[in-house]
């Protein structure tokens, strides 16, 4: 009850004070009037005087309402701030260690939050849902999309969704974009911007009238980014015509800067879904997509109607889609609704969670290390403040009160460090992302409530972690002895310090070990034989204008290009592929063995290549043959060694078949393992025949000059083609880029760990020397030489150091297993890394011992003993 009334007071705040003032003024006037009636001329003065100090009275009256601890906390804060300022060295050290620790954690969380947790930047994102299909009873669950016809059916019949949108993204050329990356064009239903509630920076969004299949209007909305970079923020952009893969579109709007789109892709331009055949006039599927009910799969999302829940919508959509599918005679699928954050999708969750978990563990370890460090510093400080604390204890302050005060100090430190950490998290992720990718993904890294909450929690947690033990230790003392300047019960405090020492060593072993593994992994990746020819191989990417080249014309032109390049290519062979080797892209198909049901399909990676591919890249056939003309029609495939080993362990797969969907694919050859999908142990994969299309990669042996010559030949054939030349060596380097960054980050973390641990070890040992000054003095007086002193100091800390190394080694073994599961590039534990890490730590440990020990050796026995 009292608590409630106190809260009431806080909420009423100012009004309460006004009332009190009015009440007291009334009192004063009444008293004055009474005095005057009694015939005293100076009544006003005396009434005021007699009544005492008005200010003080109201101050006290107000004070009644504040809980006594509020005042105490304020005192503690002031006291804590003062004592932190008084020791700037300690404060700076602690802030640096904690700030780095919290900063790293916050940085990682900021990225995680931006990538995975933030919903779409739209109006009331909580009411938006991603709508996915799932297939009941599948072993490897796939999450699919919807066809346009099914979309229209659901849109028109759903009561639980007030708006449904369909989206599909395609790469296009904007205007005459000859070089560089292609742009991302999103084909969306006309209601897209309305349903999402997106503001426009300029003009308007799309409309339903513009998105009619029979009468598509070529209008486009630009992203703010595109408007700024490509059109210089031209205010007269509205009404201008731009070309998307050659087709003219009129710009009707520019989206708000804050709207970064509805997927992880870049969003450069939005056009009505119905204009798909306008941009892809020669491709049959573009029209089919819009009109064929059997055609899937575009992403669908919806906004829940007022009062409708996600469960209701899921039930309704499942029923509707079943009805639709059964009318078509298709196998029905289930519908699943998720939030719009990336992490909400179960398939993305799986991808993110292990990598994120490992990284989080690493930065958490660094923070733990920082905590152990600061904890040690605080212990040392508590020892130095023993007298002060003893005085306060003997003056009657309760132990709890003093612990609270010490904890408040820790909290102050942690909060300040949290502020520093937030600052660091403003610059660090952006910096790292910039290093990692040429075109970093569009991420909103501004701290939101989730980030702030995370940082505050971490700061509080660290305060308790590093502050509690020293506070409890520091106040457990015999007042008598402390006042006398003795620290008789050194041992328990010392034990805590040894534990902290061991923990620090252990954590740094684990961290150093993982950075060692990453560095070693990088070195191996650099020297490893990828299983295919690298030097002297050129990759020529040819991108034909889609408005003039369909699949067939494309293949014809590619064949001609290959023929022309032949004479300048080594051995006269020019291979064709859909995707470049190490191009960070792959085909993934669901496949099953004959006799298995479709539900039992599992995913399989693949590449589409021509027969020459294996010859040019020097990948031998271990069994069977390479592709020959006609294989494409026969659905022949080639599998690699890893696939053959896994699925046909006893014999050759040549002549067997696998099933992909409704297709039966006969295996005609087995290729030796080559790491064309990515460096690292080769995974099972298959090759399907390819003979070019309107986009292909030509691979042949040539030096750079010949490569450029080949590019010129292709441009001669077709001026509109976008051609780029990449030496395979460069492709390999590009692939190593992220591995390098990973290794660099791991190394940075390891180095940080090493520095923190060394400083920590130094601190502990220096302190132990300080505490045992008398003992050392005696030994020196008895003739111990400085060298012996170093040995003595080392020995007394050896147990903690060794225990730390041992525990760290065990941790490292466990960690290495985990890391290798997630990052196959990483090497296993090898003796070089082991020896390196142990040596580094021993050296750091010895260095940390030598300095204080030498100081101990110089201890003047007379002064040390007089110290009492």
């Amino acid at each position: 009850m009292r608590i409630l009334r106190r809260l009431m007071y806080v909420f009423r705040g100012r009004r309460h004070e006004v009332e009190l003032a009015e009440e007291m003024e009334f009192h004063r006037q009444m008293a004055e009037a009474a005095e005057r009636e009694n015939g005293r001329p100076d009544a006003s003065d005396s009434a005021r005087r007699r009544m005492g100090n008005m200010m003080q009275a109201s101050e006290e009256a107000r004070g009644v309402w504040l809980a006594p601890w509020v005042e105490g906390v304020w005192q503690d804060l002031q006291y804590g701030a003062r004592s932190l300022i008084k020791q700037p060295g300690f404060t700076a050290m602690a802030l640096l260690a904690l700030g780095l620790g919290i900063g790293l954690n916050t940085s990682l969380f900021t990225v995680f939050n931006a990538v995975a947790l933030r919903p779409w930047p739209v109006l009331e994102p909580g009411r938006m849902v991603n709508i996915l299909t799932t297939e009941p009873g599948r072993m490897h669950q796939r999450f699919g999309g919807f066809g346009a016809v099914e979309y229209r059916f659901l849109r028109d019949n759903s009561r639980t969704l007030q708006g449904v949108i369909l989206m599909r993204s395609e790469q296009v050329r904007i205007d005459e974009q000859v070089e560089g990356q292609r742009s991302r064009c999103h084909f969306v239903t006309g209601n897209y911007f309305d349903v999402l509630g997106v503001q426009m920076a300029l003009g308007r969004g799309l409309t339903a009238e513009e998105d009619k299949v029979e009468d598509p209007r070529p209008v486009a909305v630009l992203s703010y980014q595109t408007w700024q970079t490509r059109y210089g923020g031209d205010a007269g952009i509205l009404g201008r015509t731009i070309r998307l893969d050659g087709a003219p579109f009129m710009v009707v709007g520019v989206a708000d800067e804050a709207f970064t789109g509805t997927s992880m892709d870049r969003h450069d331009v939005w056009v009505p879904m119905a204009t798909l055949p306008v941009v892809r006039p020669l491709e049959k599927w573009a029209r089919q997509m819009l009109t064929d009910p059997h055609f899937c799969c575009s992403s669908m999302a919806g906004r829940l109607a007022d009062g409708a829940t996600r469960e209701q919508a899921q039930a309704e959509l499942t029923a509707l889609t079943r009805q639709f599918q059964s009318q078509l005679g298709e196998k029905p699928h289930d519908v699943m609704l998720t939030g719009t954050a990336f992490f909400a999708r179960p398939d993305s969750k799986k991808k993110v969670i292990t990598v994120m978990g490992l990284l989080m563990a690493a930065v958490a370890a660094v923070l733990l290390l920082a905590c152990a460090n600061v904890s040690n510093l605080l212990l040392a400080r508590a020892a130095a403040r023993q007298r002060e604390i003893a005085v306060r204890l003997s003056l009657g302050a309760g132990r709890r009160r003093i612990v609270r005060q010490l904890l408040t100090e820790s909290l102050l430190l942690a909060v300040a460090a949290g502020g520093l950490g937030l600052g660091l998290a403003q610059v660090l992720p952006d910096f790292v992302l910039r290093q990692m990718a040429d075109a970093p993904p569009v991420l909103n890294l501004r701290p939101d409530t989730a980030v702030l909450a995370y940082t505050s929690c971490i700061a509080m947690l660290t305060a308790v972690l590093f502050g509690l033990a020293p506070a409890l230790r520091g106040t457990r003392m015999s007042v008598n002895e402390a006042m006398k300047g003795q620290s008789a019960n050194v041992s328990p405090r010392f034990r805590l310090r040894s534990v902290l020492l061991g923990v620090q060593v252990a954590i740094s072993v684990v961290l150093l070990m993982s950075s060692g593994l990453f560095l070693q992994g990088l070195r191996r990746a650099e020297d490893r034989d990828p299983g295919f020819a690298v030097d002297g191989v050129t990759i020529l990417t040819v991108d034909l204008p889609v408005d003039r080249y369909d699949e067939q014309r494309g293949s014809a032109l590619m064949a001609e290009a290959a023929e022309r390049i032949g004479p300048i290519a080594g051995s006269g062979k020019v291979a064709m592929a859909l995707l470049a080797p190490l191009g960070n892209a792959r085909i993934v198909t669901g496949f099953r063995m004959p006799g298995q049901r479709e539900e039992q399909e599992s995913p399989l990676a693949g590449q589409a290549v021509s027969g020459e591919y294996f010859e040019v890249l020097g990948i031998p056939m271990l069994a069977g043959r390479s592709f020959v003309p006609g294989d494409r029609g026969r659905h022949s495939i080639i599998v690699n060694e890893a696939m053959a080993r896994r699925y046909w362990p006893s014999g050759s797969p040549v002549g067997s078949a696998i099933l992909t969907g409704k297709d039966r694919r006969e295996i005609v050859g087995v290729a030796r393992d080559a790491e064309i999908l990515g460096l690292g142990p080769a995974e099972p994969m298959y090759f399907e025949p390819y003979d070019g299309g309107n986009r292909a990669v030509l691979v042949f042996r040539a030096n750079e000059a010949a490569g450029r010559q080949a590019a010129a030949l292709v441009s001669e054939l077709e001026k509109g083609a976008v051609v780029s030349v990449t030496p395979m060596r460069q492709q390999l380097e590009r692939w190593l880029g992220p591995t390098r960054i990973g290794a660099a980050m791991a190394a940075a973390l390891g180095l940080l760990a090493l520095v923190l641990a060394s400083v920590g070890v130094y601190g502990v040992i220096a302190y132990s020397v300080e505490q045992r000054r008398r003992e050392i003095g005696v030994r020196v007086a008895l003739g111990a030489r400085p060298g012996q002193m170093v040995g003595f100091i080392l020995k007394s800390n050896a147990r903690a150091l060794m225990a730390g190394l041992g525990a760290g080694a065990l941790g490292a073994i466990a960690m290495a297993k985990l890391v290798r599961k997630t990052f196959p590039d990483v090497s296993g534990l090898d003796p070089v890394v082991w020896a390196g890490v142990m040596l580094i730590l021993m050296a750091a440990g010895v260095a940390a011992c030598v300095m204080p020990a030498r100081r101990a050796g110089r201890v003047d026995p007379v002064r040390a003993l007089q110290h009492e």
Partner: protein
Amino acid sequence: MGKQEILPGTLDMLILKSLAREKRHGYGIAEYLKAVSEDVLEVGESSLYPALQRLLLNGWVKAEWGASENNRRARYYTITAAGRKQLASESREFDRMIGAIQRVMGAAS
């Protein structure tokens, strides 16, 4: 005769007592105590108002605005049921104390 400071710890009880019959405003309470004690007990503002806030906080009195005898806005305090209980227990305790003190003082030495 001189003005007497109120015995420590009794102010709350005295205020509650003064409110036992009727509601009063702050000045009224001070006047009442002064009059009934025949000018012996004088309560200063600096102790009266903190005490009143304390009573409010404990829920022993309620306050409401009303018109004073000379038609000015004044804040009137009313004793609550919890306040009456408190008053009863405090005056019992007080009687016990006074009795004890008197016995000590009256004892033949």
